[in-house]
């Protein structure tokens, strides 16, 4: 019995060690190459597909520049971890830090420390407080919501009944995408007949849509705050078995290549609006900063609309 336990403990430690070793192996082999500039990238949560895409965009853009290398860190949705990561980058002496912060307030101080240490910082997607950072790159959720609203006004001929499947309504993107949508449909005869907080989750959106379908005979469109929720609503309509998925227009937001954009190609969604990750732009501005060029304090990214008409050409900028 005791021997077995010892054997087991040894095996577990060995396996865990193997995972830790293989999990960071890629970065170490990357580090051995001589590069001019080292960029530290701290991502707040790689559990979200959109953030996985952001890292992929950064990696893709960085490949084009042989003079830089990027070290990626994932804070796994933990503010304290992310604070530590920024400080690690400072003591490591990286040339530039890119951070997509989990929360503004707790990360303001570590970012300021980096600036004090002479390391420029690019803040992506979510802001930090004050002005102790080099450049902020982010998109405008209110504008995206407004564009979605305007699109539905056009697509429905100015009137219709809409179901709104909202993102987590205690989060800023959820509130802004809702606010923008209301601005977009203002003055038209479009009416929101049913809305629910789906917390960005597809299974929840699917269940809420089923309730809406049971209650209302006439639904003209579904406005979902993210593409997975729009996809869930489509499946709910399809599972109903009355063919209503063909008459209802489903609109989503985010337009990740393998998610929203593909759904548009498949004819599942009528339209999706890109919420750009800013990964490519971050590398572009990083190189400008490292070369000593001046960059604006705030860069607001535009959005693109993808519909069946323009999806083959890669969408249209708005």
């Amino acid at each position, binding site marked *: 019995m005791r021997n*077995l*336990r010892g054997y*087991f403990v040894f095996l577990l430690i060995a396996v865990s060690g193997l995972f830790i070793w293989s999990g960071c192996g890629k970065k170490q082999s990357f580090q051995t190459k001589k590069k001019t500039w080292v960029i530290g990238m701290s991502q707040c949560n*790689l*559990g979200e*597909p959109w953030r*996985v895409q952001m890292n992929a965009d950064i990696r893709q853009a960085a490949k084009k520049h042989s003079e830089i290398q990027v070290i990626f860190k994932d804070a796994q949705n933990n503010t304290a971890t992310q604070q530590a990561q920024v400080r690690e980058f400072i003591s490591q002496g990286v040339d530039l830090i890119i951070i997509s912060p989990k929360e503004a307030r707790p990360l303001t101080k570590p970012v300021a420390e980096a600036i004090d240490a002479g390391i420029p910082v690019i803040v992506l997607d979510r802001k930090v407080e004050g002005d102790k950072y080099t450049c902020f790159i982010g998109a405008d959720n209110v504008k995206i919501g407004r564009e979605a609203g305007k699109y539905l006004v056009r697509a429905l001929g100015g009137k219709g009944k809409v179901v709104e499947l909202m993102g987590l*309504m205690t989060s800023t993107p959820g509130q802004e995408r809702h606010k923008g949508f209301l601005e977009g449909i203002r003055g038209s005869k479009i009416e929101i007949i*049913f*809305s*629910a*907080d789906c917390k960005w989750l*597809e*299974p929840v959106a*699917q*269940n*809420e849509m*089923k*309730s809406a379908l*049971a*209650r*209302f*005979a006439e639904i003209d469109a579904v406005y979902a705050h993210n593409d997975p929720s729009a*996809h*869930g609503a489509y*499946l709910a309509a399809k*599972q*109903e*078995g009355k063919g209503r998925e063909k008459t209802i227009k489903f609109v989503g937001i985010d337009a990740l290549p*393998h*998610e929203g954009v*593909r759904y548009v190609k*498949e004819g599942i969604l009528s339209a999706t609006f890109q919420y750009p990750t800013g990964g490519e732009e971050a590398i572009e501005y990083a190189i400008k900063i490292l070369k000593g060029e001046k960059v604006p304090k705030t860069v607001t990214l535009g959005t693109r609309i993808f519909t069946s008409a323009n999806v083959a050409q890669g969408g249209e900028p708005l």
Partner: protein
Amino acid sequence: MREDTQTKTLHIFRLVSRVVDLLGNFRGLAALIAVFMLGVFLTPRSYDTGLPVFLTLRTQSDVLFEYAEFGILATGMTLVILTGGIDLSVGSVLGFAATLFSLLTIGFGWSLAPALIVTILAGCFAGTVSGFLISRFRMQPFVATLAMMVAARGAAKWISGGIKVQPGAQTWYCLQSRTPEFYEWMTQKLPRVGIQPITILFIVNILIMLVIVRYTRFGRYLYAIGGNEEAARLSGISVGRVKLVAYILCGAMAALAGISNAARLDLGDPEAGFTYELDAIAAVVIGGTSLMGGRGGMFLTLVGTLIVGYINKILSVRGVEEAFRLLAKGGIIVAAVLIQQSRKE
């Protein structure tokens, strides 16, 4: 005058509690009926029949369909809880199974049968590891299954590369534009039966387990171990082996729920099933099975799943705001459990 009203109210309270007592073993059902009546009175009328939405056949089958995954998890969870244990890993194992099944069918283009078998075996394996740690090393179920919960989530993210497994998500996937027919078949009403295969899976599964728990030696051993583990051991029951089987079955059912989840969402999400273990435990406990082990049963779990499903459906159909939804849910759960416990035991 005031005393008069007071005694009257007292009388009414006594009457209610006496009625509840008279229900005896049907108290669980009474709670279900109470929630059902809430549904009948509180939901708006449907557009096609004019009846309350809640009374329509489609709403009833929607509830069963939407809560089938939780019901399947709760069925496995009941086996474990009867032995006085708990399994926190079912949500993560569900996510792992959903990802694995999608990866096998969409990514590698496997046909249905081998993919099903491998996925269910993977669920069994997760259960085996937890059960082994618990029965062999006497690790506390909470701790052993907590470790499995974390590890299974890691495994799900690892095999999927951290993204949702759906056609076209990676260029090397065998299927690039559509999922296999099985996915849609699972979620469409069968022509003559009128309900979806996922719902049938839930109901058949819980009925089989009901028979096993109530009428087989294995079932009696579960109760004996949960009631008094030492006494069970002394009376010659192989406690470790029975517990191991309970955890293996629980893992297998988490895998079945994972396959259902993949079919329902038409993709394999490595994040699927996050916090589902809590909903499964809630369904078991609201049904009336004791967390201490040794008391309860499968029928109660069916009732508990329906109570939770009904509450969520009522709140959803009415379009209640999130904050009030959570508050109401908390209140109704406590009331449902109180109805069951009102008789002194």
